[in-house]
């Protein structure tokens, strides 16, 4: 039997806090408005994307400015499969999205991981914009700037087409997406706590030293690129049925910038930072957009403020406050 001290140890407290937050998020549909549920659903899709993005950015030290490409691959996979091939099983969509994005990430990553810093950022941005142009110009295939419709997918084999759309999205689809987020967050936690995760952090901190200790720097960066690409594709595939229509704007460089913003806002040095950034960004954007059309100006100011005053993001500020509190005790 566990002692009270064991139950209230720091590690256990953290787990309990996570469980409570998880239950709260799961229970939101019971008391919140449909609109709030819808915003949360969008957050879940972005959360999966940024948690994968941060494996590349926060843990490997590679800043991609074209990561929305993989999110778009996931979203268009959902559109193609549901619209053109009548494949409505969400699980099949997710598997295909992971396969296609992994292959694409392996090809693009093989080129990009040879470079670092601004060169890596510019290359990824260039690939993102290439894909944008492809989606825009091959309109017979992709619908051009009008994009493609995404039909309502089956969840776990259940055809839920009888349920009203918002009820479907804010109940069944909400829970489905949330469960996937929880699973993928747990998987990512395992990855960053594994020997592979340690090697990625070593590469981020000092690639030259890592190489002298036998770490295959480029190969590991490539693996991280593929994993983060697959995460983004899952995020995109889950976002697509929620928005109902996909268009090339998803892969425009400003959308990649949004992923960077979310991660910086929450704090890339903390595992949960990107998730915090994602939820704050989505709700803040909704609020600010309802107040002014110049919302990009406000967000620009927030970004400048963050970089100058709190480069560790929200999680960094909270963490330093907790440390200060402990020191004062």
């Amino acid at each position: 039997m566990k002692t009270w001290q064991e139950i209230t140890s720091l590690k256990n407290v953290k787990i309990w806090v996570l469980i409570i937050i998880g239950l709260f998020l799961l229970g939101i549909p019971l008391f919140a408005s449909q609109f709030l549920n819808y915003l949360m659903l969008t957050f879940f899709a972005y959360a999966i994307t940024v948690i994968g993005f941060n494996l590349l950015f926060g843990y490997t030290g590679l800043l991609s400015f074209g990561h929305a490409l993989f999110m778009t691959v996931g979203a268009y996979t959902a559109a193609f499969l549901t619209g053109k091939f009548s494949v409505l099983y969400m699980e099949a969509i997710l598997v295909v999205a992971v396969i296609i994005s992994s292959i694409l990430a392996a090809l693009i990553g093989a080129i990009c991981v040879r470079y670092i810093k601004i060169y890596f950022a510019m290359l990824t941005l260039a690939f993102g914009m290439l894909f944008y142009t492809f989606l825009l110009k091959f309109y017979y295939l992709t619908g051009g700037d009008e994009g493609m419709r995404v039909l309502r997918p089956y969840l776990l084999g259940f055809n839920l087409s009888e349920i009203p759309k918002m009820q479907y999205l804010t109940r069944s689809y909400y829970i489905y997406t949330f469960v996937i987020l929880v699973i993928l967050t747990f998987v990512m936690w395992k990855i960053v706590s594994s020997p592979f995760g340690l090697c990625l952090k070593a590469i981020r901190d000092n690639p030259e030293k890592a190489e002298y200790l036998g770490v295959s720097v480029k190969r590991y960066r490539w693996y991280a690129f593929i994993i983060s690409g697959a995460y983004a594709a899952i995020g995109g595939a889950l976002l697509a049925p929620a928005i109902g229509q996909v268009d090339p704007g998803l892969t425009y460089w400003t959308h990649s910038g949004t992923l960077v913003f979310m991660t910086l806002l929450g704090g890339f040095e903390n595992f949960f930072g990107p998730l915090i950034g994602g939820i704050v960004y989505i709700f803040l954007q909704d609020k600010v957009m309802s107040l002014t059309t110049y919302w990009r100006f406000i967000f620009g100011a927030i970004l400048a403020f963050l970089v100058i005053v709190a480069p560790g993001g929200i999680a960094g500020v909270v963490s330093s406050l907790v440390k200060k509190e402990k020191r004062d005790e």
Partner: protein
Amino acid sequence: MNEEKKMAILSASDLRKYYGEFCALDGVSFKINEGEFVSIIGPNGAGKTTLINVLTGLLTPNTGKVFYKDREITGIGPEKLSKLGVARSFQLVNIFPNFTVLEFLMVAIVSRLGKGTNFYSSLLRNQEVTGEALEVAKLFGLEEKKNVLAKNLPQGDKKLLDVASAFALQPEVILLDEPTSGVSTSEKNKIMEILVSASKEIGIKSIIQVEHDMDIVFSFSDRIIAMHQGKILADATPQEIEKNEEVVCTVLGQKECFKIFSTLLKR
């Protein structure tokens, strides 16, 4: 033992390295045998660090070849070299600042055991990796600081940790670029003694070091390679180097020259 019969573990033949017009290595050839502790000495700009960088594959020479045992390793690159059994430490402290001592050592062990592509198992629950990291930390007297971040260690310990991580690879040959630079005089001997005992414990066959401190060079080396302007001026035992007035004065400068001859006079 007859010198000719000893097995060469690392050798270089006619290495030349140019930085533009400047010739940093000018026809350098030598052999390092199993069981030797070799020091490379010379004034600043003699080409010592360039030589280490060429030997460890970080730089590719313009001409010449490097061999590890019978295998050519010229320009092979640090990662492959470490897997073959050659490791190095750096002149300037080269660490992962945000890693604890234990995590730092675990990078080398994970890499040596080929567990780097283990995506899913918990690192901290891996007894083999954590146990070995702790063993290496003990060897270098760092076990009490195992949870301290590398950036918060004193300078001497940072240097030790850098070297310890190279030792954790369990190489056959280790190249140490000024292992005691930036460390207080009182700590230098301690560090060298730790290095020698740890190398015996781990089974390192040969140590090659670049060093400026002549007390350390003459106390620990089996052989000394003296360099000047990219060339080898002398390759001999410490006793022979000590007797070579011209080489000593050319390579070590007036201060060391005076110091060594004062010591000889006292004897």
